[in-house]
């Protein structure tokens, strides 16, 4: 049975890299990278499925020498749970409240940095080099775009099954699906 008072950090399917100030976590299942600041990382490391939130608060206070609200730890747990970095999803303690109002409430009362987890989806290799946004028609080369046929230069390339093409006569060159490309002809 889930005991939300003793959350457990997920260990499987993660690559963990400690930096000087933060902990980076790469989720192999979702290809998402997360950057946990010190506060979030501290709470995550203490989530062993045995230690209660109350105990985590005590350990945090001992380490930092500052008094903190239990809500600060819950805010970290909430974010960890949302990002699937806990074994089991924990019901949000702040259900019904906006993140902004929670942050405001805890932020005013805390001298400790609020827990922050920054996340992003890791790019595929093609996306790591691709231009962002849609290229203009002149990038298509040979006037292909005006005929609605595949373009020659969504450089470097679109991600399969999408191909570089135009969705209509005179349109901009962009990554489109082959089915649409055929229709456009």
């Amino acid at each position, binding site marked *: 049975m889930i005991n939300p008072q003793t959350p457990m950090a997920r260990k499987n399917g993660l*690559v963990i*890299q*400690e*930096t*000087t*100030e*933060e*902990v*980076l976590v*790469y989720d*192999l299942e979702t*290809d998402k*990278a997360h*950057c*946990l*600041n010190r506060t979030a990382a501290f709470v995550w490391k203490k989530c062993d499925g045995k230690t209660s939130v109350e105990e985590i608060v005590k350990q945090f206070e001992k380490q930092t020498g500052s008094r903190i609200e239990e809500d600060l730890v819950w805010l970290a747990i909430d974010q960890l749970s949302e990002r699937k970095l806990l074994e089991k999803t924990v019901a949000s303690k702040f259900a019904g409240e906006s993140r902004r109002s929670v942050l405001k409430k805890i932020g005013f009362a805390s001298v400790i940095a609020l827990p922050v987890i*920054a996340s*992003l989806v*890791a*790019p*595929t*290799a*093609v996306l*790591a*080099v*691709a*231009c*962002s946004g849609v*290229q*203009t028609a*002149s*990038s298509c*080369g*040979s006037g*292909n775009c005006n005929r609605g*046929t*595949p*373009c*020659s*230069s969504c*450089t*470097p*390339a*679109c991600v*399969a*099954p999408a*191909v*570089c093409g135009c969705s209509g006569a005179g349109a901009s060159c962009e990554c489109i699906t*082959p089915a649409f*490309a055929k229709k456009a002809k």
Partner: protein
Amino acid sequence: MKSESKKRESAKRKNTKLKKISIESYGVKIKIETDMNLDFQDIKFRLAKKLPDAFKLIPNDIFEHNFYITQKDSIFELHKEAEKVAESETFDALLEQLESYIRITVAEYAVGKVFIHAGVVAINERALILPAKSFHGKTTLVAELVKAGAVYYSDEYAVLDENGYVHPFPKMLSMRGIIDDYTQMDLPVEEFGGNAGTKPIPVALVLITEYKRNAKWKPQELSAGQGIMEILPHTLPIRNKPEFTLNVLNNVAERAIITKTKRAEANVTARLLISFFETQAFKI
């Protein structure tokens, strides 16, 4: 991969034999096949230009990645493994796509290296890395830095080893804006009065920047974790080998300053960066 029998059938219909070459670059083995009457010299020439000092021919039975070029009606097609990844009305455009896909494959699977899509120069034997997407002014800034005295390392990839040192990838600079805003023209670094680096060097500064008209130069130093998160969107092997990649990026972040700012004109930015390197005491 498109099945061997289908490839053979297609070749038979066209009354040709399946032709193939295999190459190796940074430990990545790639086979290129076609059922067309294709001269591989052009492909070899293109790859030699784009994978500087880093590709060789290998026996055809040793490969990990497979590309296949074919023609259906008037359309040329490029297949990678099982999927059609590009098509074009012109063969030249398809070869551009092939060359691009091969470089990306090498960058993604390179053995013992992490490729970041970035410009790289050296100033006083310390590297400045400029990660950015295409069309964000990487090459322009690299060219201005070279004109201002920096040593050229790459206008496309920062090639990092396991210690976080950056290796030269001195392909010709692919400049846009000479013919038009989109067509690239390859120019040797000597055209900019500079020369190319030859040895691995430590990274002193990673600058996340993009051009914005009249932008104010306000570099904001990032923590190691924040910095790595900014570099990750430009990092090719992150999905394929996340553990090695994060370790290498951390090795960079431990020594280098990682900073972010909008920039104005490239020549102004280049001068700022050169003077920054000349006055800053780096950790390395």
